[in-house]
């Protein structure tokens, strides 16, 4: 993973560019956070401070907005990620059981990353493919109509990739 300095300069440049495009506008803070997360994979303190400085906003404001919205992550993701949809349609069709089976197997709670940084286990509130419930996104690719066993199998396939 490229979280260390060295390569970071380029990414800050990229972020700078998209902020410029948005005119360093305070009102576009959420857009800026989106593009920062896209660039860095997550939002760390350093990035948030950088955004605060550039948009001339207090750090507390930027931090407050970043933590309010579920979509923003303040911690890095693992190499792979699995997002279990916990919307109503998926829940009714047993998504909670899939999630529990993942949690037990990998010994992490939802929202966490395994210690070897191989897998982040996440959940979502409806990804909009409710007809295929239950749905799990394996590395952002949706798979639907899963039984708990099939879900585990797909998980292993992703991790072995």
């Amino acid at each position, binding site marked *: 993973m490229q979280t260390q300095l060295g390569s970071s300069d380029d990414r800050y440049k990229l972020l700078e560019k998209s902020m410029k495009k948005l005119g360093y*506008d*305070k*009102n*576009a*803070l*959420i*857009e800026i*956070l*989106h593009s920062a997360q896209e660039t860095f994979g997550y939002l760390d303190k350093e990035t948030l401070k950088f955004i605060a400085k550039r948009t001339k906003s207090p750090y507390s404001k930027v931090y*407050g*907005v970043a933590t*309010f*919205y*579920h*979509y*923003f992550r303040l911690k890095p993701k693992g190499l792979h990620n699995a997002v279990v949809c*916990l*919307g*109503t*349609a*998926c*829940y*009714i*069709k047993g998504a909670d059981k899939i999630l529990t089976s993942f949690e037990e197997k990998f010994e992490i709670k939802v929202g966490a990353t395994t210690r070897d940084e191989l897998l982040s286990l996440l959940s*979502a*509130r*409806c*990804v*909009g*493919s*409710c*007809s*295929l*419930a239950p*749905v799990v996104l394996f590395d952002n*690719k*949706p*798979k*639907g109509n899963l039984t708990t066993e099939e879900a585990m199998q797909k998980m292993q396939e992703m991790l072995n990739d």
Partner: protein
Amino acid sequence: MINSLEELEALANTKRCNEQNCQEELRVCVGSSCASLGSENLKEILDAAIKENDISDACRVKAVGCNGLCAKAPLISHCNRATKISILYEEVEEADLDELIQSVLNAAPVTHKHCDITQDFFAAQTKIVLENAGIIDPDDIEDYIAHDGYKTLFETLENKLPNEVIEEIKKSGLRGRGGGGFYTGLKWESVAKVQSEQKYIICNGDEGDPGAFMDRALMEADPHRILEGMALAGYACGADKGYIYVRAEYPIAVEKLTRAIKQAKKLGILGENIAHSNFSFNVEIRLGAGAFVCGEATALITSIEGNRGNPRQKPPHLSDYGLFGQPTVLNNVETLANIVPILKRGAQWFKSIGTASSSGTKVFALTGHIQNSGLVEVAMGTTLRTLIYKIGGGIPHGKKFKAIQTGGPSGGCIPESLLDLEVDYESLKKVGSIMGSGGMIVMDEDANMVELARFFMDFCKSESCGKCTPCRVGTVQLTELLDKFVHKKATKKDLELLQNLSHVVKDTSLCGLGQSAPNPVLSTLKYFENEYLEGISND
């Protein structure tokens, strides 16, 4: 650039003529459900096969939006323009494509994977909002124009005054499809009346209900219709700027809308002095970031302004003090998608569909324990029984129906005894649920109603913004109480407390989230009290 109605029609005609020669069309659905089963790959293979067989003059492959029957995804339809016959294929796999191409080449119909389009799922629907979905290519503005797109906008700019537009919408009886059911014409009128240099139109594409995908499908399948609706709203209310607030979880919708805006701008359909009139209108997209409360009007606005999405007290209403403090109209995606057909075919026509109090149609996302899960559009007043058994095809695995949940976390559960209810805003409210944005989740006999109530309360608990105490603390307490019932450790007193607290949260919360959070509890208590009683421990 298109500067007049004539030029628009000329473009539509050219497009239609160009396509005349190409008799056969293969429409591959690339909506979310089909795409997640690899339909984009199917399209590529078909494209290659057409090239290889050198039949690109006679047949073309088109990527289209959701056709509704998502349970049978991926779907491909084969249309012949001359005969107007269209054949739908379901659950198409790579292995089927050869035969499909052969059938185009020598008119030999494919015998399997055939999906009957005369079945009730399709026949019992009334498509207004979704009329283009699954037919036009959302990435191609010319296709939209060839289907009379933007004609209503241009005709209106030429022939109608803003207040005539408002009168027509008022007469149509159109009500907000985002859940509240507020009369759209009245909402527009209140903004039109205010004098202000700057006004805004906002399209609410946040679709927070976790189990619904109507707005997603609409934005993906027919983005231009939403833009046209917004521009008409802008003209009627005197606004020259629009925002579409879309969930970041809907990347395809964002992509389609972004492209649509770009194409419309390029043709001068959006921008300054549209069709040489003095009306200008620009649209920007703003991304949500996964907060249910941001679907609420005041929270959404403060979120667009770049803040935490905390709602505020009303009044002042959005019509006086909305985005950046200016008069603002906020409408749901589906509401805006109804504007073009109303102005095109007239308020009388629209009123003739639906019930006395709720005219037109409603799109529902039918999911859960149901055979034909998918996206359906029916006239208001259609019964739940028709929706579940006729259109939905009933409950799979020979199980019995137990309840249907409408309105998401703000709605309620409706039991079997009320299946003949004719669905509209009033009737649903009367039985303790709400129309909501259109999520309908069917549950069979195995579903546990207390667990479902807990599921929704837990959702509201984590989505509560924390600004007001009844919602922040109340939802936590209610979740803990429901936990006790789920684990069969509740007492009789807990039942009383559950009821009382539900009413307190409902009556004293600041915004709609808290005010409606107890609805799933109250409605399940009303119809399935025995399941709560079973959660009371005897020791």
